[in-house]
């Protein structure tokens, strides 16, 4: 008698928990789809091994292929400080990463020279 009652309680509890978990999972999928977290996660997997491209870095800093390293540094300092004051941390990060991406390209000629 007691064993049967206990078994019934366990089965009912398991059913309730299972339903709750399923509903939570569905809601999580909906939220991820809305906020773009899922897309960001998928892109993040690809981004983990991939860095910023040179073209994008030049676009971010607003320079051309004929610009010198001094111009790049000056542009970087200006944009970094302005974003530090009134801009956003995300844009500041992108400016910083852009400079990091371009640094090897311009440092090699200097070393050679």
């Amino acid at each position, binding site marked *: 008698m007691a064993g049967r009652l206990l078994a019934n309680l366990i089965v009912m509890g398991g059913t309730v928990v299972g339903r709750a978990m399923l509903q939570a999972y569905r809601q999580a999928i909906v939220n991820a789809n809305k906020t773009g977290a899922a897309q960001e996660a998928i892109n993040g997997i690809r981004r983990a091994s991939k*860095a910023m491209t040179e073209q*994008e870095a030049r676009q971010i800093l607003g320079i051309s292929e004929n610009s010198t390293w001094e111009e790049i540094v000056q542009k970087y300092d*200006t944009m970094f400080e302005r974003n530090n004051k009134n801009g*956003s941390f995300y844009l500041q990060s992108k400016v910083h990463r852009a400079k990091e991406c371009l640094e090897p390209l311009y440092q090699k000629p200097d070393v050679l020279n």
Partner: protein
Amino acid sequence: MWNRRIGSNSLVCNPLRNGDRRVSAVSTRARPPSGIPHLQPVSCCEPIQWRFHSSPCGRKDSVNHFQILAASPVPMATPLIAGLAVAAAALAGRYSIQAWNAYKARPVVPRMRKFYEGGFQPTMTRREAALILGVRETASAEKVKEAHKRVMVANHPDAGGSHYLASKINEAKDVMTGKTKGGGSAF
């Protein structure tokens, strides 16, 4: 007749009791030097001696004990505790002075946050738009406009910014205000 006999018994008992008292008193007074052979005087003398000896001894013992309890711990404990307190205060003062000096001499090191990795995403999402403008994903339209104006002023192409960032900022505003459809579904 029976009542009379009982009365006579009580009358007889009373003088016996009186007689016993008188006899005991007389014996204690009369024969103190030769009390050894008599049992009764010995039994009478013992409690008397006990009483006389116990009460003054007890009083003296209690007085001495009280004096010991009251006097000895106080002078032994007070100087030690006072000394420890003074030493602790001195150490605390010294530590405070050192801490203050170290605090004044500390270098000003700004807190560095880790920058976000990589570049912009191929398709802008609401999350990235919120990060670009520096607002919450659930911010109201007014706050989004205010943030957009502020960030655009900081990154304006005519004032040292770049066209690419300006376009990204405008796109972020559109995404936040719902004018542009968000990123495609991942599922």
